[in-house]
């Protein structure tokens, strides 16, 4: 939260292209330890691609990505694996394994990385499920039996299974009604406080930005246009940024800034 804390993720000169189409070019971005960073941008500008490039799901043409001090593009598999244990990812559609129950989904990373006995595995999984605000009986349900909000919570429980340092959230509140979205924001904020998480959040939700983000980065024109506090956004001179933060849908922002 302090402005001086060291960056936990440092991206320099990131370039991503799919065939002929360059999506990102020379993108620089820092995420500081313990902050909630909101990444915004128009649809198709590469917000999700940035997230996926950092976690290694899309091939990167150029640039460096440092997470927890490890260069993700040049380090050995073992070093990368050690970093991967320390982050959790909430995918846009949840990406829960549909053939496993919620509890088994939460246990997947635990079983893969640790050697815990069944009783402790069960207790840890049920604790995580309770911490994201799901009822105990949700643990034995299959993803197809859950509502949209419950899927997001279950996916968050899986992302938090290994007590990560960093959580990546890809549009966590999309598809939720405003009340559930507000509750989910609050949940993320509470967990971030309690567990000391660093949160990298791709979002479209102006209310999330106003209520829980410490810093905001705007992606456009294949790079980060501006990164800073909400007030910095309001004074920044760029047509899209202005339209986004000062437009008719930004009433919540205006209220938050006062």
């Amino acid at each position, binding site marked *: 939260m302090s402005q001086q804390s060291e960056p936990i993720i440092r991206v320099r000169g990131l370039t991503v292209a799919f065939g002929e189409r360059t999506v990102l070019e020379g993108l620089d971005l820092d995420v500081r330890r313990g902050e909630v960073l909101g990444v915004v941008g128009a649809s198709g500008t590469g917000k999700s691609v940035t997230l996926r490039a950092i976690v290694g799901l899309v091939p990167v043409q150029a640039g460096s990505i440092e997470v927890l001090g490890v260069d993700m593009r040049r380090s050995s598999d073992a070093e990368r694996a050690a970093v991967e244990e320390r982050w959790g990812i909430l995918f846009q559609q949840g990406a829960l394994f*549909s*053939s496993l129950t919620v509890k088994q989904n939460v246990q997947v990373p*635990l079983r893969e*990385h*640790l*050697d*815990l*006995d069944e009783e*402790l595995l*069960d*207790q*840890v999984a*049920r*604790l*995580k*499920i*309770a*911490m994201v605000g799901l009822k*105990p009986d949700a643990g034995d349900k*299959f*993803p*197809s*039996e859950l509502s949209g909000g419950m899927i997001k919570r279950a996916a968050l429980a899986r992302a*938090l299974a*290994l*007590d990560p340092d960093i959580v990546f959230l890809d549009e966590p509140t999309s598809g939720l009604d405003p009340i559930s979205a507000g509750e989910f924001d609050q949940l993320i904020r*509470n967990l971030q*406080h*309690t*567990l*000391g998480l660093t949160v990298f959040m791709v979002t479209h939700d102006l209310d999330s930005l106003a209520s829980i983000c410490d810093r905001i980065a705007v992606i456009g024109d294949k790079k980060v246009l501006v990164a800073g506090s909400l007030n910095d956004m309001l004074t920044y001179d760029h047509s899209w940024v202005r339209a986004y933060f000062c437009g008719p849908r930004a009433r919540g922002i205006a209220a938050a800034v006062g």
Partner: protein
Amino acid sequence: MAAFTYTVDGSRALLEAQGPWTIDHAADIDSALRALSPDLSRLKHVDIAVGSAERIDTTGAWLLVRTRAAFQSAGLDATIKDASADRQTLIEAVAARAPAPLPAPPVPRPIADALAETGAQARQTGRDVVEVVGFLGEVAAGLWRIALDPRRLRLISIVTHIERAGLQALPIVMLISFLIGAIIAQQGAFQLRRFGAEVFVVNLVGILVLREVGLLLAAIIFAGRSGSAYTAEIGAMKMREEIDALRVIGLNPIEILVIPRLIALVISLPLVTVASNFAALLGGLVACWLYLGIDPPVYIDNLRQAVTVAHLQVGLIKAPFMAMIIGIIACVEGLKVQGSTDSLGRHTTASVVKAIFMVIVLDGIFAIVFASLNI
């Protein structure tokens, strides 16, 4: 290094957490805690000190909370102390959401469970039959609507499915039929040679292929190739709510998805069966030539005398019925798919197994009917 020290001073015990209390050390901490056997009769107070723990995450906090609860349920006065504000928040958050102990698992009853399972399977089979009959009704109603208004027939879709299910299946069906035809002729030759009746190999191959084998091979390959594809296609559409989307747009999924596939199968299977027959007879020709020295012109001449058009008709008349049963089972199973990938896999397997089984059953029924009619 041990995860904690445990010291007793009179009626007061001190459990001091040390080192990292995190999930990657949880297994060791857990087993060390379980090994702890405090003398409960003498103790009154237990202090759990967390001041010297290096790091605590949710799992570590849970182990602390669980230990405190265990002491408390033994009637002791247990407290967690020396926690910094951050740790206090975490421990309280975890304590507030501590999972309740699991209910005892039900006692296994092997005989009763086996009986219950058998009963459930029987009821499921009954429901399957009702479902297929109901589905047949829906298809009939759809066909009737199409007959009244022929513009509803999806010609392009039918042609596409004929290409995929029929034309593209030709090479594999013909290859397998060729091999099976050759094998029947070769094995027949070895057996019949003992009676000096090698020439009747041609009759054996001709009648067997035209009445049964050509069709059965084509139908089984259809069940495996097209039946599984139809179940997977319709099942994936069901999972992604595309079927529901069709319904709300006012389109009937039976008309759009099922009828074109059924018609395509009913048209393709007899045609592919003819090709399969030719390939199997050709396989017989090659085997007779190699093993018995029957020249191709002689083989063809003998074949002419051995088989009649009736044999071909007996085979072909069964083809549309088998195509229908393959298509209906595939579509019913596809529409039964639920939300999970697991369910998609289960229903695709069920589709192929049931379709092949029903093809054989149907063939048996036809054989009985034809025998009683002396055909």
